[in-house]
Structures are given as C-alpha cells and as structure tokens.
C-alpha cells in the first residue's frame, strides 16, 4: 500500500522514437488508476517504467517514500499481470503461483499456505495441478492474478489483463477485479485501450495520446470536461463528434459554421478557426431545412434501444444517437439540430475554449 509518483518521466527508444514526453503522474495510496489510450500512446511504456522493465531516459519513479528509478523490478515490490498472460508453460498452476515466493526463498510451508490462500480467493483450487495449456482463457488470467496477489505487493500493475477475453468473461472478471481491489486495498495501475473498461473500473483515469498525458481525472470529469480534443474523441461510445469550423459574425449575433451547419452561438473570446465538439446523444434529427442545417444520411445502425445515424455534413462525419428506431433512410437528406448548451469548443490546436 503505497502511493506512486512519477516525475518528469520520459522515454526515448534506441531507434530515436520518443515514446514518452516528460510526464508527471500521481497515484494515491490504494487507488485504482486507469491508464487509457489508443495503441501506441505510450501507456504500456509508462507501466513498464514503473515496473522497472524499462529504464526511463529521464525522470524518476517514486513508490511510497522510495525513489526506485535505479532499482531492479525485484526490488520494487510490484506485481504485474501481462496481457498474454505469460504463465510459465512448463510449470503447473500451483508452481506458477508459487514462483514469486520461491525465487524469494520463502519457507516451503508458508509458500504452500499462501498459494492455497490465493487460489481460494480466485477460485482456482480445483485446477492447481493442471498445466497452463489445460486451462481456459479466464482461468489463465486468474492464475496470472493469483501470481500477483500471492506475494502481497505494494503495487499492482495490470497491462490490459482482460483484452484477450470474450465480452461476457471480461465483464465477469472485471467485477472480480474490483472486488479484489476492495479486499486488498492495494494501489493498482490498470492499462487499457478500452474506454468502457476505463469508465467502469477506474477511480481516476489518465488519458495518454502519442506519449503525452492529456488529462487525469475521475470518469465523470474526463467524460464531461475533456481537457483536450483527443480525450473528447476517445472517451464515450461512440466518441464525441469533433467538427472543424469557424466563427463569424452574422445578422443576429454570431454563428459558427461547421460544414453545412450554421449554429448560432455567442462567442466571447474567440473568432476564426476552431473545433466544435458535440456528443452524439445531443444531436437530434428533424425534417430537412428545419434544423441548423441539412445532412446526408450515410449509415443507420439500429441497436434496439437506440439508433446510431452516421451523417455527412458538408464533407465532415457526424454521428447522432437517437432513441428507439430512427426514421432516417440512407441516401436521403435530413435536418439536424444540436443542443447548444452541450457544445464544446476547442481551438485549432485542440485546447478547450472557455
């Protein structure tokens, strides 16, 4: 149980690729923080630097009171669960779980007791003597968790542990993971590219994009007050619509033009090129020429309780989420309305306009 502090951490790989730009991150004691980002965003590199598997090019990692930057993984008292999940294929489940204790020369009786304890906690008692290739995917991931839990480390690092599982199993294991976190009270860093997963399990979410930390906040903050246009796009299913546009003065006040839409809006501080964000649920459809503009219907995806309508507004894509089944036909023109109170404005570089 220890907080983790990352100070000005950066990583440049051998080929000169800057995987991480200097970033600061603080994980509170006992917190479950999710590192969220698309693949290639550097989230796994952050995790491996904290684990000690990568040596950072600059910056420090502090676990508890200790600066561990120069320590080996073994000395950091962290446990890691891998995506694949890296069970030693030549060892039984029991031996896999016992491995971290055995290499630390824990007494045999204590090893047996703690392995049994961890296995019981994770429901693995019946498969202790099987080999990893005789297990189901879910069991394998549980064994990997067991291997992490058995040592009682200060920090758990989880690298996309559920991404290989099918949807049903993923939801079940997600619940178990949360229960485990509550029971252990340990600090956990959880890496994922799945924003739904991030929203459901993260106490706080850190969003990474191209090696930069864009925002750290609770799921609500990240969803409702995105600190960057990338965050806005990435969080939510589907993500926020972001359209290129410009503000200008009109006869009645000011308007923003995005594609074929003209949205009347007061702009206090900015004119010219900007980006307009609107979540799909705040886009509504109406008859042509009755809204803020017209759009071509490209694709209609009925999901039962709601329907996603993919539109084209003057060359830019726009998704609308409408309840029930939408009365929109592909290839027709349709009118669009937006909830003006729910519009986000970003400048051309992606920073929010207030």
């Amino acid at each position, binding site marked *: 149980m220890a907080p983790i502090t990352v100070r000005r951490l950066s990583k440049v790989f*051998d080929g000169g690729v800057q995987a991480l730009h200097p970033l600061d991150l603080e994980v509170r004691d006992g917190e479950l923080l999710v590192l969220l980002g698309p693949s290639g965003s550097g989230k796994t590199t952050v995790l*491996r630097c904290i*684990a*000690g*598997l990568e040596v950072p090019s600059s910056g420090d990692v502090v676990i508890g009171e200790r600066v561990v930057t120069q320590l*080996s*993984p*073994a000395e950091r008292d*962290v*446990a*890691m669960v*891998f*995506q*694949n999940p*890296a069970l*030693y*294929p*030549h060892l039984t489940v029991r031996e896999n779980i016992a*491995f*971290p204790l055995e*290499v*630390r020369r824990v007494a045999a009786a204590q090893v047996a007791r703690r392995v049994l304890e961890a296995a019981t906690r994770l429901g693995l008692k019946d498969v202790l003597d099987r080999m990893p290739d005789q297990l189901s995917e879910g069991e394998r991931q549980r064994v990997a968790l067991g*291997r992490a839990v058995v*040592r009682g480390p200060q920090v758990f*690092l989880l690298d996309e542990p559920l991404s290989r599982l099918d949807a049903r199993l993923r939801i079940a294991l997600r619940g178990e993971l949360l229960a485990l976190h509550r029971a252990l009270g340990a600090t956990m860093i959880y890496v994922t590219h799945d924003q739904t997963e991030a929203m459901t399990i993260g106490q706080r979410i850190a969003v990474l994009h191209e090696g930069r930390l864009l925002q750290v906040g609770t799921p609500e903050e990240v969803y409702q007050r995105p600190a960057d246009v990338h965050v806005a796009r990435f969080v939510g299913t589907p993500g926020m619509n972001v359209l290129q546009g410009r503000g200008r003065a009109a006869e009645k006040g000011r308007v923003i033009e995005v594609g074929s839409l003209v949205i009347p809006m007061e702009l206090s501080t900015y004119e010219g090129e900007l980006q307009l964000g609107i979540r799909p649920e705040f886009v509504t459809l109406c008859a042509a020429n009755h809204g803020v503009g017209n759009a071509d219907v490209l694709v209609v995806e009925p999901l039962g309780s709601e329907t996603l309508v993919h539109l084209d507004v003057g060359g830019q894509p726009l998704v609308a989420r409408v309840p029930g089944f939408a009365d929109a036909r592909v290839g027709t023109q349709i009118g669009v309305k937006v909830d003006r109170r729910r519009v986000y404005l970003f400048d051309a570089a992606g920073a929010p306009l207030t």
Partner: protein
Amino acid sequence: MSTTRWAIPAVAAALVAASATLLVVRGAQSRYEREFAMRMARTTATYIAAVTPPPPPPPAPRPPPAARRGRTRAPQPSVPPAPPPPALQLSPAARSYHLPALLSQARALKTLPGWTSEVEVYYGTAPLVDATAPPLTPDDLRELDSKGTRWRGGVALVPLRDRQGRELAGAVAVRPLRVPRGPLPGGLGFALPAALLAVGAAGAIAFRGRPLRRGGYIAAALLLAVAGFSDVRTAARISTDRWLVDTRRLIQDAAARIPPPGVRVTLNELAALVQNTGGELVDGEPGESAPRRVQIDGVERAVVVITIGSNRWVELRTTPAELDAPRWIILLLPCALLGPIGILLLRWAERTPVRQQRVSAIAWGFLTPAIVHLLVFTIGPAIFAIYLALHSAGTVVGLANFRSVLDDPVMWHSFRNTLVYSLYVPVSVALALFAALMVHAHRTRWSGRLLGAAFLSPYVCSVVAIALLWQLIYQMGSLGVGRVDWLNNQATALAAVMLIAIWAHVGGQMMVFLVGLRRIPPSYLDAARVDGAGAWQRFWRITLPLLRPFTWFVVVTGFISAFQVFTLVFVLTQGGPLHSTDVLAYRVYQLAWGSPAGAGIGVGTAFAAAVFVLVVIFRWPQLKLLSRVVRDA
C-alpha cells in the same frame, strides 16, 4: 450400404491378383525348366564330344589316347566367329565325328537307363535321333556358332563342336520336359488351390458384406504368395535334381567309355564333362543314390553319388537352383497383394467423398517422389545391406559374418573408442548454449552478429577441410604454441579428434539454441523479473526448461552423429596410432574395403548392421523422448 456395388470389382481384383500370381509362378517354373534344358544340352554336347570315337583311320593311325584325353574339353563360347554367312563351313572331317559312330551314340542316349531328358542331336543340320524330326536351317547353325546357345521352338539348342572343341559340327537340342511339378496328387502345385481359396475368400467377404473380415482376405493373399513361392522353389529344386540324375547317367557311361579298355578313368577326365556347366566332381563315398542337399563349409550344395566301376564312387556337386528362388518373392508378394490393396482402395473410394478422394490423390502425387527416393536410396540399400551381411562371395553364409564381427578383436576396442568419443557431445552442447546466450543477448548489435557468424563458420565448412586445417595446426604449431603432435600420440589422439569435433559442431548446435531462444516470448522473462527472479534464476527456472526440446534435439542428434563419426578419423588418423582412434564407422569401412577386392563386404555390412542395432538400443529411449518433446514444442 449396398454390398454389390463394390463386390464385383472386388472379386475382379482378387481374380486379377490370383492370375498375376499364377502367371509369375508359371513364368518362374518355365524359367527353371529352360535353365535345366540349356544346362542339360550343354552337358550332353560335352559328353558326346568326349565319348564319340574318332573316325576310322583310312589315311593313317590317328591320335593316341593320351593326346585325345587332353582334348576332351567342353565347348568354349569364345571360339573364333564363324566364316561369313553364305558358306557356313563345318568342321573338316578329320577332326569331326564319324557319322555312324555319332549316330549310334545319339541313339544310345535314348536307351540310357533312367535318362529323363528328351534330346536330339544334329549332325550339321540333320537330326540323328529321330530322323523324321525337322532339320535345322543353316541360319540356326550360324547363330548358334556366334552366340553359343539358342532357344528355338521350345527347345534349348547348344552347338556341338568337333572333338577338339573348335569348329561347329552340329547341335544338341533338349526339350524341357514337363515333369510333375507340384507336391499335390496329379502334380498340382499349392498355388492353384491357394489362388482359388483367395478368390473365394474375396467373394465371400464382398458378397456377404463383412467388411471386418477383410483381414482374412489379406491372410488368404499372403497364403497365395507363400504357396506360389513354394511351387517355384519346388521347380527350382527339381531342375537341379534332374540335372544331377541325368548327368550321373552320362558320367557313368563316360567312365566306361573314355579310357581305352583296361585303363581306369581318372577323376579329371570325368570332371571335365561338368566343369563348364556349374558342376564339380570329387571323390566320393557310397551313399544313397537320390540327390540330396548337404552343407559343405557352411555352404549348401546339391550332391549326388555316382558309382563308376566297382568300389569307386564320385560325388557330383552343384549349387542348388532353389537358393536363388527367394528373389521371386519380390514379384510374387506384390502380385498376391494386388487383390487386398484393390479391395481396400475400393472400400475407401466407396466411403470417401469424391472431393476428399481427389485431395488424397493429389497428396499421394506429391508424396510419390519422396516415397520413391526413400525406397531407392534408403530402404533399398538397407535391404541390400542385410543381403550382403548374410552372404560371403555370393553364397549364403547365414550369420557367419556376424560371428566374425564378434570375433573381431578390434571391434570392442573401437566400440569403446566410439563411446569415449561421443562424450564430446555434452561439452559442445554446453558451449553451444553459452555461445547462443551471448549471441542472443547481443542480437541487435553488430558484435552479436559477428560472434554468431564466427561460431557458425566451422559448421558450414567441409569436415575434410576442417580436419586438414587442424592437422596443420597440430603439426606445425600455431598462435605461438609450439608443435603439439597430439594426433600421433596414442594417449592424446582421441582427445585431439574430440577437440576438433567440438570446434566443428558448436556452431550448428548454437543455431538450434538461437532458434529456441528466439521462440521464448520475452513476456515470460519480464514476468520472472517482476516476480523477483535474478538473472541466474531466470536462466535455470525459465530459459533452460523452455529450451528443453531444443536441448534434447541437439543432444540426441549429436550422439547419433558421434556414433557415425568417420570423416575426421579417416582424414586425420586412419584409426591410428595403434587403433587408439579406431571408431565403429571406420572399423566397418576397414573390414569392408580393407581386405583385398572387397572380400570383407559381408563382414563389413554385418558389422554395420550390428552397429545399427547397437545405436538403436542406445538411442531408442532418447528418440522416443525426442519425438515427445518435439511434439510439445
């Protein structure tokens, strides 16, 4: 499942197989009959030349008996060719036969007691025994003169040369007589009943729809092959026996007539009668008159006892024709198995969807070259080696070769040397693993690649080149180390060869380990690092166990090749000094080719077979293990 759809083709396949087998049996039998006829004709021609008196001497008294005796030689095939076709010249009368004498001689053949062959003697082109028989044509004679023997109209023809064995005087013809060949009543062989049984079995299985009984049909087909072989063997045996019996009559007759009255015939004079027909005549003892088979010096011979005069016996010996009968199995077995194979194919075709049939046919098409290669270059030579090991100078010697292998004093010594030599394998495997770990750790840097190439270079060199290089190093000294002539020192020679073997093999083994290391996902090692394992623990607990299939592969193949080591020893030491580097494979070579003209081939191959058995015994558990770990990998 409709039974009849494949029942008729199945019976047809069985019929084809049975007829093919019977045809082969018949072919083999007539081959032996013709062989007998040809041999008998040649013996008869020699006999006639020896016993027919010279023409009465109108001009002057003709050759004295002693001189004539020396001339009783059998006809030589290498007689100068006949004069050009149109004017075929027969032997001048002086050296030729007196027609009346020849006539009575030829007729007398028919009256020899116990004589079984049907024979005709031609003087020129005219038949003598049966005057109404059709005469030969001059073309027949010409061809006989140039080729030596002829097969014409179902009759074996051999030239009858004059008494000096030079020019053609006529011909002797022997018709192969169809004696009862089979052991069953009426001369019936086993093959025909067996064929009927096989066809019947196929019919019963096919029409009654009992697919599970097809094992019974395979048994019937095998029985057919065995029966056919038995018939062929009987025919071969009979052909030898008949030659022995008929030749006995000729020899008895000749014994009474060759020498002038009052003079005892010598063994040499009689032996000359059979020496060109594969016979051998030795002094004998009284015994039963029927031909029999005896072991003489470990070799089977067919013998018959001949009484010549009172209290004088000779023994006529020859190689039994049935000894080479087993080669017919090569034809008989496939013919007999045509039926079962055909039926199995039919059943397979019936059960299998057409598309899968096509896939299977294509697969077999691609497999065929590999199968042919395997048959011709691996299985064939292996069978030939077994054949060689059981023979010595062309005759069957059974396990005698193996006995001489066990008696070979150097054999156990070379076995021990091979065992000691193979101990280089663990050393080179350990070194190769170490090298592979180093190269793998530096694999992305030029230093790693250079190191890998350096280790690998001996492996891609010719072994002979390596051996010569090291010979130079040992003899001339190198790198400031003086001349270290370990190869010529009895105490160090084997170790010196082992050192070269290590040097030559580390590279290849390293390659295998490198592949293995590359196949270990890095996440295992990452996980172990986070779990707290140090470098040493990671090697022993993760890397080495995960490399196990590769380690076993390297160790097993290393030991196998160590047991076969030849080139290094051959080039470097020739087994010396004082057999201190004599290894099994080199000993095989020495036994096979070391003695003059490959006389030891049989012993050598027997040794090789013994080595093979040894290697299999030693390596079997490891090979089983290897197949398991390869499956696991």
